[in-house]
């Protein structure tokens, strides 16, 4: 096969010539063999062509916007014209000293934390039950998974209706119980409603992963525990749950990411961040300040803070995935 021979030969020559360059790159970026198949091709131009669409899209819609956010965070821009003045860290000092921003940060932390814990607890309970029952398992699973298909915005619409103080059936029930439920006026009610909608939408995600993790626990380990006299609940707490710990850790990270970044639709359809900023999470505030108040400098500074948080969680997420692989029986 002359073509492939020629390819191999020219490839070999090219590698030899490029060796010093490759070595210096390898030093800078770790080994250049990482993630390369032992059997591979040497057609740099074809590879460049295959990579081009991905890199071009990333350049225009990821790197340039990210760079802009970073540079905008250090200037003061007037929303109607082009003028911008470099102001250093002013945007950040203003941001961190603003009580509104601090309130929003504390609120986001609480909301995310509560959402994360409650979601995991409900999902673990349901997954445990799914692991025990035999009859009807597929039907239960199918129903519980359904909210995965439902957009956060639609979850918001459904719960906004259920607890709407004038027409909502569940709001009527609360009123009958003597509770003056009104998420449009009472901050606590609004926050509770947003949390319920967020949890309802997200339990299915944790549930899928936990069911898979519990199923992956080897039957022999469970049987050994049973022979030692451990009853089902004890087996679950001392064998199944620790074996699924890496999955739980992964889900904690994913729940935080969801609570921080993906609840925009829920908040926008139920409360619009109100009343009195009681559901104005960090992501919602970026949108409010940037698109409603046109305070671009502050909004960019907020974006940079969020980026830092996002990077932190991505690192944690990869740690979680690594731990999952290392945990072997």
């Amino acid at each position: 096969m002359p073509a492939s021979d020629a390819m191999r030969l020219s490839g070999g020559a090219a590698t030899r010539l490029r060796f010093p360059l490759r070595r210096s790159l390898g030093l800078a970026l770790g080994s250049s063999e990482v993630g390369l198949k032992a059997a591979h091709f040497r057609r740099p131009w074809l590879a460049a062509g295959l990579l081009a669409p991905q890199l071009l899209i990333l350049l225009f819609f990821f790197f340039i916007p990210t760079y802009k956010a970073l540079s905008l965070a250090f200037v003061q821009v007037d929303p109607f014209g082009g003028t911008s003045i470099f102001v250093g860290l002013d945007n950040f000092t203003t941001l961190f000293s603003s009580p509104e921003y601090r309130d929003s940060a504390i609120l986001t932390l609480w909301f995310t934390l509560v959402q994360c814990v409650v979601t995991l607890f409900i999902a673990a309970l349901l997954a445990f039950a799914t692991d025990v029952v035999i009859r009807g398992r597929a039907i239960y699973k199918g129903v519980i998974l359904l909210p995965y298909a439902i957009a956060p915005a639609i979850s918001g619409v459904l719960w906004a209706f259920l607890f709407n103080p004038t027409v909502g059936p569940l709001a009527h029930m609360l009123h009958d119980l003597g509770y003056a439920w009104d998420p449009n006026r009472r901050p606590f009610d609004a926050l509770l409603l947003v949390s319920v909608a967020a949890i309802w939408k997200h339990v299915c995600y944790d549930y899928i992963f936990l069911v898979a993790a519990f199923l992956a626990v080897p039957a022999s380990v469970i049987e050994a525990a049973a022979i030692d006299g451990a009853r089902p609940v004890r087996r679950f707490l001392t064998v199944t749950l620790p074996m699924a710990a890496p999955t739980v850790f992964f889900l904690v990270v994913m729940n935080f990411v969801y609570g921080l970044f993906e609840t925009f639709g829920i908040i926008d359809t139920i409360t619009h961040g109100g009343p009195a900023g009681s559901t104005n999470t960090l992501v919602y505030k970026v949108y409010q300040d940037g698109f409603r108040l046109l305070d671009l400098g502050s909004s960019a500074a907020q974006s940079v803070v969020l980026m830092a948080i996002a990077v932190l969680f991505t690192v944690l997420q990869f740690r979680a995935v690594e731990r999952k692989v290392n945990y072997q029986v």
Partner: protein
Amino acid sequence: MVERHVWLSVFCHVVLLVGAAAVCMPLYFAFVAGSLTVEDVQQVPFPLLPRDHFVQNIVTAWNEGDFGQLYINSIIVTVGIVVGKLVVSIIAGFAVTYFRFPFRMTAFWLIFISLMLPVEVRIIPTYEAVADAGGPLRSFFEAIGLTGLLANTTGYRLDAALQWNMVNTYSGLILPLIASASATFLFRQFFLTIPDELCEAAKLDGAGPMKFFWDVLLPLSRANIAALSIILFLYGWNQYLWPLLFTTEKGMYTAMIGLKDLIPVADARPAWNIAMAAAFFVMAPPAIVILLMQRWFTKGLVDSSK
């Protein structure tokens, strides 16, 4: 096999029934609300059984929101996201795992970094990028002097030609959402698990890279592609923030934004019956996909995080 406890089974069935009921309850009430007239909706206590206006409300909502157009928009955007992201990422994943070329690791890291920042945290600058996609190119050509040169020699206004405003276009709705490397990374991870012998054998038989890709890699990736398509379909159809920002004309709204417009605001006529009926046909496509392809998608979702 371990022993079974009757009471434990009963307890678990109760837990699951309560869970399933909690999932269905909002959907059931939405269905009931969608089958009422606007006067019935305001009744206290709220009726517990559906009445017979469901179809009528669906028709009203469909016409009122011009959902024929919005549905087409949603379908175009979703298909664009699914197909665009799959194609772009599978070939990029192929390139970083199966080719040796200079700056391979640089390319890999450039792609990898984009996993770190979700779209939500760079809303404003991405909006600018889409509102003026030609901007960076304009400043680039201006910096290297090409703009002035062309204008002087040929009279061709390069800066005028590079005005691309993507607001209210399908590409503006699609491209920013596929600018993340999650799927590329997924395919890379999958390709790394494919035995080396396959590629060796293909090379021995004289197959070039593209032939290997078409005849070996793509058929092997079929399950991954299917699972990822489902996940991307849900992702695309359920987008909310993006279409909310990038569409200002009603004709370009997606179905999700159309639904948002039907939610009664305070002091308006509480037409929740129309909004709830609309919620049903907006969430129908992803719900049908989930119900029909549950096994594919749960496996794909759990695998994709590995």
